[in-house]
């Protein structure tokens, strides 16, 4: 379990804009171990998808972006590979599924051929064998009557089925790491539950690591082993899933957890709201990036930017000057032990 298969160190992905470089991902470090499901959460625009796409270097480096840092996969820094070497990694060792399965599939080819294509590109395999395996894969991902489905086109399938096909394509070359970028956001909740349990099953069955990008903390709690919380291009907290939900240490993580209406909480309790919206990348505040919305902010937070460091008493890494001082408000099972009063000052709008 503890052998790392992917290690990202101080990754910085900057987009070339008319007024200079905009760092959408600014010094992200994270590790995915063998057989582990790691969740990356954050609001839209926090850089979680860009991090995922940087791993496979999906952006055009000549025109769009500049990568810095290190992405080490099996001892090799992916950022130093040549284009050709990189394409032998994509879809083969590391593959990816996206949010919208309709736009990710080619509408004019039957789905079976699209699965076969991935295998023929990377492996020495006959077309017949590949077809056989494609049908097995369709079965593995829970598509009924795979023989007939093989010849169908994407438009003949429902959204959930399309996502299963995407997963089948991703699995075609038996990757060691699957990057799933919001795989269920476009799906209904009952189908979402099916796809998530499929991913969890594949993780166990194939011992395949998964990097799961999502904005839904419920999904994280149910499927991930480890969680990385991102805010404005930086990692603000890394913790095991139990630790994160039980004792969130970064004020932003706390805010995220409190803002969420929960199916298991007491009803009628107002949600705790932090005011203000996300600053844009070209107007980043001085010091800590969360300072403008943080209720614990001190002088130091306004001037110096904190680093990701261990906190007393927990395994988590937290990017906050006050992490040791912030009281952990423990959350008993299924209940929000927090209330508007106490010592945390996050403004609560009463209804």
């Amino acid at each position, binding site marked *: 379990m503890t052998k790392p298969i992917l290690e990202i160190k101080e990754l910085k992905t900057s987009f070339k804009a008319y007024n200079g470089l905009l760092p959408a991902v600014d010094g992200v470090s994270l590790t995915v171990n063998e057989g582990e499901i790691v969740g990356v959460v954050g*609001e*839209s625009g926090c850089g979680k998808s860009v991090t995922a796409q940087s791993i496979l270097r999906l952006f055009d480096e000549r025109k769009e972006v500049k990568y810095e840092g290190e992405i080490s996969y099996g001892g090799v820094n992916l950022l130093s590979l040549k284009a050709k070497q990189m394409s032998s990694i994509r879809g083969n060792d590391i593959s990816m599924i996206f949010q919208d399965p309709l736009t990710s599939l080619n509408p004019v080819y039957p789905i079976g051929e699209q699965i076969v294509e991935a295998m023929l590109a990377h492996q020495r395999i006959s077309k017949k064998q590949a077809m056989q395996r494609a049908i097995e894969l369709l079965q593995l991902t*829970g598509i009924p009557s795979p023989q007939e489905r093989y010849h169908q086109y994407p438009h003949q399938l*429902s959204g*959930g*089925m399309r996502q299963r096909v995407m997963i089948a394509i991703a699995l075609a070359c038996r990757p060691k790491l699957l990057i799933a970028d919001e795989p269920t956001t476009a799906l*209904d*909740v*009952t*189908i*979402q*539950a*099916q796809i*998530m*349990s499929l991913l969890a099953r594949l993780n166990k069955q194939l011992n395949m690591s998964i990097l799961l990008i999502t*904005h*839904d*903390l*419920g*999904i*994280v*709690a*149910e499927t991930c082993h480890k969680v990385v919380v991102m805010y404005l291009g930086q990692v603000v907290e890394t913790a095991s*899933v*139990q630790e994160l*939900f*039980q004792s969130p240490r970064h004020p932003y993580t706390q*805010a*995220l*957890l*409190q*803002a*969420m*209406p*929960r*199916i*298991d909480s007491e*009803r*009628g309790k*107002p*949600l*705790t*709201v*932090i*005011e203000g*919206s*996300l600053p844009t990348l070209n107007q980043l505040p001085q010091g800590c990036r969360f300072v403008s919305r943080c209720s614990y902010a001190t002088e130091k937070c306004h001037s110096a930017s904190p680093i990701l460091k261990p906190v007393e008493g927990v395994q988590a890494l937290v990017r906050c000057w006050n992490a040791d001082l912030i009281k952990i408000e423990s*959350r008993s*099972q*299924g209940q929000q032990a927090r209330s508007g009063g106490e010592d945390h000052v996050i403004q609560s*709008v009463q*209804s």
Partner: protein
Amino acid sequence: MLFNPSNRRKPLLQVENLHKSYWSKAKNSFKKARVRAIRDVSFTIFAGETYGLVGESGCGKSTLGKTLLRLTEQDSGSILYEGNDLAKLSSKQLRHYRKELQMVFQDPYSSLNPRIVVGEALEEPLHVHRIGTPQERTERAMDMLAAVGLKREHYYSLPHQLSGGQRQRIGLARALIVHPKLVVCDEPVSALDVIIQAQIIQLLKRLQHDMNLTYLFISHDISVVRHISDRIGVMYLGRLVEEGDTESLFQQPTHPYTKLLLSAVPVPDPFAVKKEWQQEGELPSPLEKIAGCSFHTRCPYATERCRLEEPEPKRVNEEHWAACHYA
């Protein structure tokens, strides 16, 4: 505040046997096929409450919202608003009621005209209903901006200068500026991030209290609906399959579809006991004709009777019913 069961007995909107169908291209043929988007829906919304409507995409919840305001015409059935049947009114007569029934849409990006400033967009409904002088309208727009938590400067902003959350506040302000009684909120927070979503939910609650509003809150997000609603209706393939007050519906979900829906919601607690009821199968196409109970194709408890006979609503308790033979 949360409404009190003792004084809720004033129905604001009563819907009876509402039907609505669309014509759509049939599969593998050039013929047209009828999609029955709403089938025999009856329910009542009481003054001052929030009625939540949940269901998966394609179940007809948005169509229902639009049909109630006559943004699309119903096939049959009645929509009684304070005793008057909206379905029978001419468009001229309806204009008076349009003021009292307003709608907030899901997508704050496409529901605002990109070329007119926010203030003008806010004043437009007042114009249409011939309310006030130009100065009064501007004043009211300014007041409304303050009420939804925006600044006076935003009067001169164009939609592209605002964030998603701010646009949704504008959408809300525009619906509320004519002082409606009933607001149909069609997925008002679905496009927003969780922190912004919480801001808008708290705003909706505060405005409901301050302006004495009644909400029909349509959403696919069960946690959000649970948080905001007093009573909830669950829709499946154009039908209301279960209705109850929020407490009872979540304590005691009775229709198998409601049970499936609730068990599918991920619980943000890694220590929670995993629920085991996994269900395969997907929503059937709305073009298909399903005899008997519309859920029988996915229902693990389905029997012969479910395939043949349409279930009638059965009482679970005074406020709570489910349309299942075995409820």
